């Protein structure tokens, strides 16, 4: 009798544990998204208000009006993700296998940006890249930049800002997955006459792929939706889809278009994730993200 009630209690416990948090996410994450889907099908104008009407043409209009910004977002985020991978992989590799007693200090340096405000750091880039700053001055001196050439308010500045801001999100998962690689497997490969390069390509790299996947997602997803870097380091010519959604929503009060653009953004992100997962041959998405 007592045992039975204990067992029942054990069966109920997970739901009790899960309940409050799940409810919070349901009300403040899932319901808003569903509401957003509803809003995206409304029609009307800011003055008279919007009414629901299965108005799918908002999507096609938004796509034809803002495909430039959508493509630009994916271009910038893609380039930034690749740059981050190129910068972070050797760094993570060095920390995992070569850093010795400097390991913890180097890891601390990687997470340090998390403890300084994102905006303050981006404003700091504004200062570094400004027209009368030291960097632009030296680049003009050596002729890499023409006398009227700028760094701030260019595509380069926006991409550099995005690359900078999301670098730790690439470096940390890479480090975690490289750290897990059993060095004896690499030794076995070299013992069996694989060259260092072959051992890296056939053993280390495949074992580190979950980290590459997780890092790319953690970099690419926030980068695609970012609008801070474009707003602070670029001009309207560099505006990304996030800038459009933000302006539509907060300034122009064109809620249906903002909602439609949100779903277009999420749809393309989902597509990109699935294609990337297939290309890397990752079996389970969440498994890689947890790595």
């Amino acid at each position, binding site marked *: 009798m007592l045992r039975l009630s204990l067992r029942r*209690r054990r069966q109920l*416990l*997970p*739901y009790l*544990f*899960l309940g*409050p*948090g*799940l409810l*919070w*996410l349901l009300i403040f*994450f899932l319901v*808003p998204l569903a*509401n*957003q889907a509803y*809003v995206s099908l409304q029609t009307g104008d800011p003055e008279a208000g919007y009414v629901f009407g299965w108005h799918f043409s908002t999507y096609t209009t938004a796509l034809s009006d803002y495909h430039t910004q959508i493509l630009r977002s994916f271009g910038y985020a893609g380039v930034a993700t690749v740059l981050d991978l190129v*910068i*972070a992989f*050797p*760094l993570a*590799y*060095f920390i995992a296998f*070569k*850093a010795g007693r400097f390991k913890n200090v*180097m890891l601390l*340096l990687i997470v*340090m940006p*998390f*403890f*300084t*405000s*994102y*905006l*303050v750091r981006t*404003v*700091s880039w504004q*200062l*570094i890249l*400004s027209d009368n700053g030291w960097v632009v001055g030296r680049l003009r001196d050596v002729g890499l930049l023409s006398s009227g050439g700028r760094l701030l308010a260019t595509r380069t500045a926006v991409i550099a800002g995005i690359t900078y801001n999301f*670098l*730790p999100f690439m*470096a940390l998962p890479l480090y975690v997955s490289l750290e897990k690689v059993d060095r004896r497997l690499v030794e076995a490969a070299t013992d069996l006459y694989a060259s260092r390069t072959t051992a890296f390509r056939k053993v280390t790299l495949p074992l580190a792929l979950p980290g590459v996947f997780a890092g790319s997602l953690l970099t690419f997803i*926030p980068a695609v*939706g*970012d*609008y*801070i870097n474009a707003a602070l380091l670029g001009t309207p010519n560099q505006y990304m889809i*996030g800038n459009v*959604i*933000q302006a539509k*929503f*907060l300034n122009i009060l064109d*809620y249906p278009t903002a*909602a439609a653009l949100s779903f277009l*953004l*999420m749809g393309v*992100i989902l597509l990109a994730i699935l294609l990337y997962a297939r290309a890397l041959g990752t079996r389970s998405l*969440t498994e890689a*993200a*947890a790595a």
Partner: protein
Amino acid sequence: MTWDRLRTWLLGGWSGLALAYLFIPIVIVVLFSFNNNKGRFNFTWQGFTFKHWAHPFADPDLALALKNSLAIAAISTVIATALGTFMALALVRYGFRGRGAADLFVFLPLATPEVVLGAALLALFLTMNVSTGFVTIVIAHVMFNISYVVVTVKARLEGMDPHVEEAAQDLGAGVWSTFARVTLPMIAPGVAAAALLAAALSVDDYVITSFNAGQTITFPLFIYGATRQGVPPEVNVLASGLLFVVLILMGLNVLLQRRRARRDHDAVEGLPIAVGAPATG
């Protein structure tokens, strides 16, 4: 052999450059908190001064913004950490119907761009006629922090030996005393890391907050507003101050863990038989 050494040097050089790239903007932030700037702008170096550090709260709007940010971070961190920790426990320790779906659902907010999260939440508040302000910011921060807490605590729980809890229950401990006296102490470092992460994300959030803030100003909102007419050096002082506080706390934590590790090591050494001690700290 020389090739090996050359490669290590190249790797080390590259890593140094990468860390410098990460670090230079932060150094500039700290440096310009000591800049003796003339007028409103803080763009060029004009000499060293401590004057901004003497009056970090000179601007009352900035002081209020920071106070709001810290209060929002404290409240939302407590709520998100509590909710998220129990969710992680349920997801790792119990088999139940719908676990896979719940796992995926918790992961979804992390895969959604912030601008979408913020806009969707504001649309809901507008539809429900909820006026935005302090409370709606807290609600939003708890929402995006829950998933981070779950992921962090889950990672800790997955590295833990479940037999320890079973042993406690076999020895007659009830569900609650097992939780309070065995599980919680073991996952404490994970919970602390999750809370630290949640607090950092909350203090730093601009995008989602900007949608749901109403008339309330937070630290990031103040900075964004100030970018148009020049960010005052007091912002550099407060940002550097926050960084120093975190660094000191992390330093203390490392010292504490080292001491605890030494004590545990001594305790195990002192035992007559070798015990497969579970990993702590």
